[in-house]
């Protein structure tokens, strides 16, 4: 084994050891990088610390605070409850109605915050007590809320997509649009599972037209936010950061005065909370960037590249499955955002090996990382939802295992049918997936 391989192993083992001792991820990561640099390389330590700065000094990241602030304001002002009520009149009358409400609410709320944590917190506090009243096993509720919240990582304005786009130099608009279909597939898959295999709940009457109109009217203004974000970014009118800023301004200027006037006094607190909240993933990204940079310096992408090439040749399907396995395991141990920064050099190298479209690969990686957040041994999001539901992680995990089928299915569809990811960006924003205007003037020419 050569020195570089030993250095990589030392860095990874240091991070995992410190991480599992309870050292915060950002500090465990940078500790591994500093130790490895000092022991095995001639790189100066200030340049490793400098990489922390370079890792976050990218304009694309400016979108993240806005989406977190938007999600925080919507939750704190209780505007989210209107979306949940809207979901209730749409699907609440079906068998396992509240389970469907969780899936639909997550799809709607995901389109505003892009944060799985915000999604879990918002949906858990409002829907879980009602699920308990209707006799749903709290462990099932926790598993479902956690699984549904992963949709936030896939649909716009996914924070993982922003980080992936910024770190990997891939179109964020393409990732936003490309992730929408898999996100919907996960949501619908969870609904289908709940309908056939979930607890029956209490059957309710279908909402009347009047109730539907009222719920739609109340939810209409909040539902404009995903439309503003997707419409603005897809049409190329806004960058993701500007779309986030406009969503924040829309909430402050339109939604709060009309729907939660009393909350306006609480705005300074929202800003304080969101300000600290966005620094958490970003400080992890800062440290992960240093680790990713050092990994690249030590030749980790080449090592993994050679290993995967030996197993798969240039077979894109096997490469993608191997990446799913690697990234799902990584998602178990590590939050998705720093994982992207660490693995990006390897992802780029393998995308080139298998001639895989960067947006296609990006969406697959994001879905895999999101899946990792609800799988054992760690399952960060499942841990959070089980805490909020007041059940042990193990009980929630037992209920979550059957839901994994939905992810296996979605991941397989993504791998075998790239168009599931690429059709929407090609339709709405062809340049985001490498298409260019046809010289004859009719439409676009897209790479295969």
């Amino acid at each position: 084994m050569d020195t570089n391989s030993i250095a990589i192993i030392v860095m990874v083992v240091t991070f995992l050891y410190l991480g599992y001792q309870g050292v915060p991820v950002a500090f465990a990561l940078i500790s591994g990088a500093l130790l490895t640099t000092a022991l095995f390389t001639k790189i100066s330590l200030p340049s490793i610390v400098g990489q922390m700065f370079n890792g976050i000094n990218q304009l694309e990241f400016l979108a993240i605070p806005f989406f977190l602030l938007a999600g925080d304001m919507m939750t704190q002002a209780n505007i989210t409850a209107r979306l949940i009520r809207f979901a209730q009149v749409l699907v609440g009358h079906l068998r396992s109605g509240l389970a469907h409400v969780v899936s639909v609410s997550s799809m709607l709320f995901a389109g505003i915050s892009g944060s799985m944590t915000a999604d879990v917190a918002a949906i858990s506090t409002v829907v879980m007590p009602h699920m308990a009243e209707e006799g749903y096993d709290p462990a099932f509720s926790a598993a479902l809320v956690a699984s549904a919240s992963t949709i936030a990582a896939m649909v716009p304005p996914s924070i993982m997509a922003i980080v992936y786009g910024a770190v990997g130099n891939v179109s964020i608009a393409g990732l936003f649009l490309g992730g929408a279909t898999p996100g919907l597939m996960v949501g619908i898959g969870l609904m289908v599972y709940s309908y056939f295999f979930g607890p029956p709940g209490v059957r309710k009457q279908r909402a009347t037209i009047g109730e539907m109109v009222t719920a739609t009217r109340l939810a209409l203004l909040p539902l404009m936010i995903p439309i503003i974000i997707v419409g603005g970014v897809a049409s190329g009118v806004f960058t993701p950061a500007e779309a986030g800023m406009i969503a924040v301004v829309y909430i402050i200027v339109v939604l709060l005065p009309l729907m939660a006037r009393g909350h306006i006094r609480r705005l300074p607190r929202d800003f304080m909370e969101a300000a600290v909240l966005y620094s958490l993933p970003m400080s992890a990204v800062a440290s992960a960037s240093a680790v990713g940079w050092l990994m690249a310096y030590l030749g980790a992408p080449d090592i993994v590249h050679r290993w995967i090439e030996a197993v798969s040749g240039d077979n894109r399907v096997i490469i993608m499955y191997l990446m799913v396995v690697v990234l799902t395991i990584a998602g178990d141990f590590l939050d998705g955002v720093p994982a992207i920064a660490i693995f990006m050099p390897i992802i780029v190298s393998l995308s080139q090996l298998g001639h895989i479209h960067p947006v296609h690969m990006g969406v697959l990686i994001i879905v895999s990382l999101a899946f990792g957040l609800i799988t054992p041994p760690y399952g960060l999001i499942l841990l959070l939802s089980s805490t909020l539901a007041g059940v042990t992680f193990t009980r929630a995990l037992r209920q979550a295992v059957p839901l994994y089928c939905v992810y296996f299915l979605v991941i397989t569809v993504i791998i075998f049918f790239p168009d599931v990811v690429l059709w929407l960006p090609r339709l709405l924003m062809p340049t985001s997936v490498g298409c260019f205007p046809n010289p004859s003037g009719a439409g676009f020419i897209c790479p295969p």
Partner: protein
Amino acid sequence: MLVAPKPRVTVRAARHLKWPALDPLERGLMVLCALLLLGFTVVEVADVLCRNLRRPWLNANEFAAGFFVWGVFLGMGVAVRRDQHFRLTAIAQTLTGARRTLVETFNRVVVLVVAISMVVFGYRNYLTGYGSFLMPSLTPIAVLYAAIPVAGVLVALFTVEELVNGWRHGFEGQREEQGLEAGQVPVA
């Protein structure tokens, strides 16, 4: 059921590990972070408005990056006091007695070493930052690099606070109102 936290800015969790004298600093940092986020929002609004008025504001990105970078690193510092950083496990909290003290001390010493590295090596970067410039204003990039040693000082300060109080009063104790406020909640 989730209980809404009391409307206080200063963190309520693990008070036995905090010095009340540092509460005003935490409050001040929270306000500063909020102001940076507000400034960043205003800059973005102004940038879009100016562009649409066909009078582009050329320095907008410099200001936005400045607010963003300082916000991240100051937030990194204050999140140490609020115990909000992502963690893989909360293994130490399941332990008691001497083992708990040992693990908690070890973890904080690691954070302290990283903080000192951020101060020392970040300061060296800060000095070299006078040789590179932000465009188009030609402001030395050192104004952004300075955020790292400052964050290092804050991280070190809040870590020492917890170490000293942990040794004095024990790391165990009522972790009141922990919930989401201090619960290693990731944002993903």
